[in-house]
């Protein structure tokens, strides 16, 4: 075993994460769309020559475990030269769902003739439209082809020259090409920053030292994870929870997990999970991996670098063709945003049996994706609006849950009401905490949100949400949180809508979305 200096370990941890963070700042500064600049729906990371992630700027947990698979796909598909950039979004080749586009750049070090491959810089950003059935590319689909343009790993840039043919093809397939082009340029700039900064570090410390502490940090994260798992009692912990439906068939879809803790290792086995379904809530393996990594990373409870080392002691079994390891051409738009949340719920549900004092009750378990598109006659333009809505978090042993906030796999901001009404033909009728929706208990779950939006002109509304039938669970005797509800109010008459729905609305219609509360913890006394 190589001996690592405890001081250098800490110093390099700061160095590498500041490179990833600087990439993120470049992306945010040069990004074009509000999705990147305001909602910050992106992630940046660095990889060694074998494709192991060694640093990540923490932005969106769902990107966490899935980026490495993108880089592996890139490495397998190509030999790299300095100045290349590989682009991809194909969920079956390193992606998650089509709006998330990943760019991978090789890091070469050394002088012109003696350049050697060192590793990779990569970033992923959620693009607000990549074509497909409905504006915003989060449709109620039944196959991948309906969700937008599919980009397998291809070289968008070769030795510093953009392949304009690919770029043109790509932009011809999306609704807002200027915005896409701007965001893609920003993504390239972010990778360039990562390449440049890693080059500087190699100059300053030498390749050998830099690589030594990459491995040092991978081992460090592994050690921390092993320690956490080692603290858990050996045993098998099983938990099953359900998604309401897939948006096409009314039947619930089950996710089952058995976590086996054996010493300082864990086996996470999703056998027993429902087969992949027709509607677009299928999760590719990358998402299952992300959710698992998130749960263990969060349980460690310490400031551990998010890197490949965290996953070494954890083995995932996700049977092919199930909801948690979907195969082509299954529709996947909602897997990233909805199913990922339920995977977290079942993992935490299982682990609560192993360490009840460290796991909160279920949070809202959905992202309540709302997409509205149409023609705005006042501003004389077509528009696509996309937003996710927070809810309640589960109560903790020792504290109530939090009201009206994003939990687990996402953390994107809302759009201010005043910004919304300046930009879109909407009027927000109310934006309130949904009191009483958190599950009661010794500690109460957090409350959800109620948001009512009036459409001033006809529009196409798509809602992709879950936990409309099955409630977020409570723990240790706490009550479940209330399920969410969607409705349209037309001429004063309220009509309930399903959890996953796409509908034409008329001027004056009001869309009402109430998001779930978190589960309670412990029996309510008195």
């Amino acid at each position, binding site marked *: 075993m190589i001996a690592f*200096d*405890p*001081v250098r*370990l*800490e*110093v390099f*941890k*700061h160095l590498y994460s*500041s490179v990833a963070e600087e990439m993120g*700042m470049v992306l945010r*500064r*040069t990004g*074009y769309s*509000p999705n990147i*600049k*305001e909602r910050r729906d992106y992630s940046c990371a660095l990889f060694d020559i074998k494709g192991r992630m060694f640093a990540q700027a*923490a932005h969106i*947990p769902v990107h966490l475990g899935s980026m490495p698979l993108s880089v592996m796909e890139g490495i397998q598909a190509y030999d790299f030269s300095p100045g290349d950039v590989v682009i991809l979004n194909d969920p079956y080749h390193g992606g998650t769902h089509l709006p998330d586009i990943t760019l991978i750049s090789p890091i070469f070090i050394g002088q012109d003739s003696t350049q050697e491959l060192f590793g990779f810089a990569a970033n992923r950003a959620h693009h607000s439209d990549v074509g497909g059935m409905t504006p915003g590319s989060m449709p109620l689909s039944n196959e991948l082809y309906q969700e937008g343009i599919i980009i397998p790993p291809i070289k968008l840039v070769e030795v510093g020259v953009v392949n304009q043919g690919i770029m043109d093809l790509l932009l011809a397939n999306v609704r807002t090409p200027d915005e896409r082009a701007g965001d893609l*340029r*920003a993504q390239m*700039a972010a990778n360039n920053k990562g390449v440049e900064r890693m080059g500087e570090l190699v100059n300053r410390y030498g390749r050998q030292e830099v690589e030594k502490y990459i491995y040092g940090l991978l081992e*460090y*994260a592994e*050690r*921390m994870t092993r*320690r956490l798992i080692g603290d858990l009692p050996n045993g098998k912990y099983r938990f099953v929870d359900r998604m309401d439906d897939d948006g096409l068939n009314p039947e619930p879809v089950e996710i089952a997990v058995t976590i086996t803790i054996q010493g300082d290792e864990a086996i996470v086995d999703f056998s027993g999970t429902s087969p992949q379904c027709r509607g677009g809530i299928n999760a590719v393996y990358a998402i299952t991996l992300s959710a698992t990594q998130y749960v263990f990373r*969060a*349980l460690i*409870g*310490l400031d*551990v670098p998010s890197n490949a080392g965290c996953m070494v002691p954890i083995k995932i079994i996700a049977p092919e063709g199930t909801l948690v390891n979907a195969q082509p051409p299954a529709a996947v738009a909602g897997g990233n945003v909805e199913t990922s949340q339920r995977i977290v719920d079942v993992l935490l549900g299982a682990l609560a049996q192993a360490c009840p004092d460290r*796991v*909160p009750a279920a949070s809202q378990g959905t992202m309540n994706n709302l997409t509205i598109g149409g023609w705005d006659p006042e501003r004389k333009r077509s528009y696509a609006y996309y937003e996710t*809505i*927070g809810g309640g978090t589960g109560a903790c042993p*020792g*504290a109530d849950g*939090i*009201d*009206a*906030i*994003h939990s687990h796999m996402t*953390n994107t*901001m*809302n*759009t*201010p*009401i*005043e*910004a919304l*009404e*300046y*930009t879109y033909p909407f009027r927000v*009728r*109310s*934006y*309130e*905490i949904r009191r009483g929706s958190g599950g009661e208990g010794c500690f109460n779950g957090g409350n959800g*949100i109620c948001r*009512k939006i009036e459409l001033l002109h006809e529009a196409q509304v798509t809602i992709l949400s879950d936990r409309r039938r099955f409630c977020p669970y409570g723990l240790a005797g706490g009550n479940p949180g209330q399920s969410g509800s969607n409705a349209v109010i037309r001429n004063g008459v309220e009509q309930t809508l399903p959890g996953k729905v796409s509908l034409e609305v008329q001027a004056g219609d009001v869309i009402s979305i109430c998001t779930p509360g978190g589960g309670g913890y412990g029996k309510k006394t008195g």
Partner: protein
Amino acid sequence: MRIGIDIGGTFTDFVIFNEESGTFITDKILSTPHNPDHALLDGLEKINQPTQPYIIHGSTVATNAILERKGARTALISTQGFGDVIAIGRQVRRDLYDLFTTQPRPLVDDEGRLEIQERVDHRGQVLTPLNKAELPILIDKLRIMDVESVAVCLLFSFMYPVHEQIITQALRQAGFTVSASYEVLPEFREYERTSTTVINAYVSPIVDRYLGGLEERLEVAGFQIMQSNGGSIRATEARAGAVRSILSGPAGGVVGAFNVAQTAGFEQIISFDMGGTSTDVSLCDGAIRVTNEAEIDGFPIRVPVIDIHTVGSGGGSIAYADAGGALRVGPKSAGADPGPVCYGRGGREPTVTDANLLLGRLAPDHFLGGRMELDIQAAEKTLESLARNAGLTPWLDLTPAQTAALGVIKVVNAHMERALRVISVERGYDPRDFSLVSFGGAGGLHAVDLAHALGIPHVLIPPCASTLSAFGMLTADVIKDYVQTVMMPGDAPFGKLEQLLDQLADRGSHDVQREGVSEDRIKLHRELDMRYAGQGYELTLPLTPDFVHVFHALHQRTYGHSAPGSPVEIVNIRLRAVGGVSKPTLPRSPLGVEDPSKAFIGRRAFVQEDGKIAHEPFYRGEHLQPGQVIAGPAMIVYKDTTVYLPEGSRANVDEYSNLVIEVRSET
């Protein structure tokens, strides 16, 4: 006589400038956190004042009221259906991976959030008239709740303030202190506006009582309060707009650092204020930079604030070995009480200061002017156990404790380097174009190493390093900022914008004149916040006839792309009114001989970066004279700070007695 008074957590600093003689005196006394005015009044009594002084004061009264949740009992009045905006915020959590994460409790609780029927749209047109019949009921509720202060923030009130005005008037008549958003911040984005207004309502009564009490007891020619934007305003004004002084603590330091640097001929600086528990860094690119995106305790404040990045590491940060085998420093701090182990006041865990002491970088006999004894054995013992816990192998000839100490310095420097990169690289600046101005008690020991790591060519250390903040207050101009959301298309006629800005300019000029500044000393800066139509972020630029062209160019420069054909929007108009005050000039002496031997204390052993033990000269900073030159490795000991000059660096004492250090370059 002008006196700058800065109340900090540990010390209350005084800088007294005698205008007739042109001389400065500084003084420090222990702060009295429970009654901050006690230290201020005691200190003033000590100073022999022949005439009534002119005082500029900065305090953390407003900041602490928020951090300790000791503000006034506050209620909030919102548009019906939107009372929870303040609690929902931007729906994001602070820590991604903390399953037990908490959110700061809103300053107005559930019960205090009241709604009233009314609604205005984005054009300022009334959709639902204000239901005035609800006002008496509201007032009754407020009385029952025993509310002291009320915030009023309605949707789109910056486009049509009438409803807020009616409510405000009724509440004021009923005897409540009211902060209305159309007065505090007529700017769009309801959560940020509400938050700013609520903070103002929450802290103003506290600040009002504090300053009112002082005003009663002080016999002064003038009493000015430091603002977060780097300017000062009259205490009477500050009492009603307390939100503008919330982040004024570190602002004085930046103003002082920039003033000292400019005088010494440096226009591009990064200020570096490393104290006991935290470190503040700020970048001045020929001018002090302000941001509109400040926060306190997680709550946004949308008034202009000096752009300062703070990290929770300082001399008191505690080092430990973590479960994975890394040596970590902070964020836990020993603070001022108990303080580092070597203070002998009950601190048990090793801190950065203990590490510096063990490495021989602090002269124990001169620490705080020799007023405090340092226990080096205790420091050694605790660092020894740190070395054991971390499994450190002794380096070269060093003891395990020294090895650990050097490790602690390297780790804390990694924190600082990261902070300096955030304020420079992440804002689009190259640190190599800047000079580092270091002040604060702990900065001098780390500044030159940090500059070296970042390629910064010069470090400047002013002679009054530990009271620079109070000095900065003496040099602060009177500054007033105004904003108004207008949301107009980019093809709005220049004349119309000029006319709108003239209204703000009249107000600004009038307000600054009321501060006692004559009209000819007032500068008015007219600015626009612009963006491409539909974007969610704005760029600020000066109002000029070709402002649209300037916007495209600025967008290109800032973000690397622009779209000259695309429609643009003017979101806000901004006005900054600056009333120039006569600034004290720093005493200047001609350069003398280079030989610094008169300040020589002796040769002492200390540990260098490379782990070698050097026997090198120590100098008394106060005895250095302009023109003298010291080559590293050396230590320069002042009574309140110590400067470490590593090998290859060279300190020149300039004519203002600043240390101007040339940093060894890489090649």
